């Protein structure tokens, strides 16, 4: 009934993640800036205010989110290829690299601070994800116990 919801393999998944993050940023930005535009406009001009605020600001937010998500996925694939294993450390290292990469314009100090903060945020998110899955008792597939040892063929 439900289609194939699994992730694409690594190079193609960067496009997917960029698109997903852009969509989230654009839709979230639309909602946020429409409320802001509505509230900051005089009565009678409210609809105009909403339209102009959304037109001006929402694409920027979408682009920012998309840049973050696309870069994160890019670094995630890179780290997976370098480390050759898949574990939660990949996300944390990718977050660290994204934080640094998106702050390049600010110089070394800003890059370092931004990288550390982003790494910590992702570590917190990984911990929260593990906590949520533990609390909702979603066990990944438990391994079947092997039968009696067979001789190698």
């Amino acid at each position, binding site marked *: 009934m439900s289609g194939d919801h699994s992730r694409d393999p690594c190079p193609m998944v960067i496009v997917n993640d960029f698109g997903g993050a852009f969509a989230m940023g654009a839709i979230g930005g639309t909602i946020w800036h429409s409320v802001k535009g509505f509230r900051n406009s005089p009565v009678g001009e409210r609809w105009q205010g909403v339209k102009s605020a959304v037109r001006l600001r929402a694409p920027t937010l979408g682009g920012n989110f998309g840049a973050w998500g696309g870069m994160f996925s890019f670094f995630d694939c890179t780290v997976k290829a370098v480390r050759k294993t898949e574990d939660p450390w990949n996300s944390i290292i990718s977050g660290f690299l994204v934080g640094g990469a998106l702050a390049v314009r600010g110089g070394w100090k800003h890059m370092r601070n931004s990288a550390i903060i982003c790494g910590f945020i992702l570590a917190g998110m990984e*911990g929260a994800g593990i906590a949520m899955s533990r609390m909702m008792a979603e066990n990944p597939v438990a391994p079947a116990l092997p039968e009696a040892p067979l*001789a190698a063929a």
Partner: protein
Amino acid sequence: MLRIKSPYSQCLGGLRRLTGRPFATSRSVGLRQSQAAPSQPGSATFGASLGRFAASARRAATFTFYSALVIGALGFTGVATYYFAQELLLPSSDVQVFQRAFHLIEQDAKSRELLGEKLKAHGEQTNNRWAHNRPIASRRSVDHYGREHVVMQFHVDGEKNTALARLELIDNAGKRDFRYLVLEIPGHGRHYLINETPSKPKGRGLFGIQWGPKKN
């Protein structure tokens, strides 16, 4: 009656003289001025004290709400930190066992010969689009000696073949040893890297029991 004119009442009185009609809220000016009059329903001071009570009740409610929010968020941060440390930092966690086992597989010459040179390890496929890593399947149990058993499986991909790696690790109060670490390769059977599974001795006599006096 003492007539203390506050600036407020003076303004009101002035406006009243200007417009020539009393306001809806104006009461007898003398009663409003008197500080000693008790608060009774229908008098202005009762309304003022009710307003002060409402304001302080609102302040208390917002303070309680925000305090609960901050404490709840700190608590959740603590829980997330605990699970982070348990899953990623402790040497007995799934991630560390997985890394150790994969390291052993990478160094083993026979595995490299069977699977190819470039090895990659991953867990089980999920249908979750947002999961970045494939989670490792593992099961933990504690036996009656108090040792923890970790049974785990993961997939190892090489150029020539894909294998299923299975392992059991026993955590005996800090000493973590593999009981077995085996690669199951379709078409090549099993390749044991470590095999310390205790086996029952084969009984030779009737019903498996060795009758008679001890031989050795």
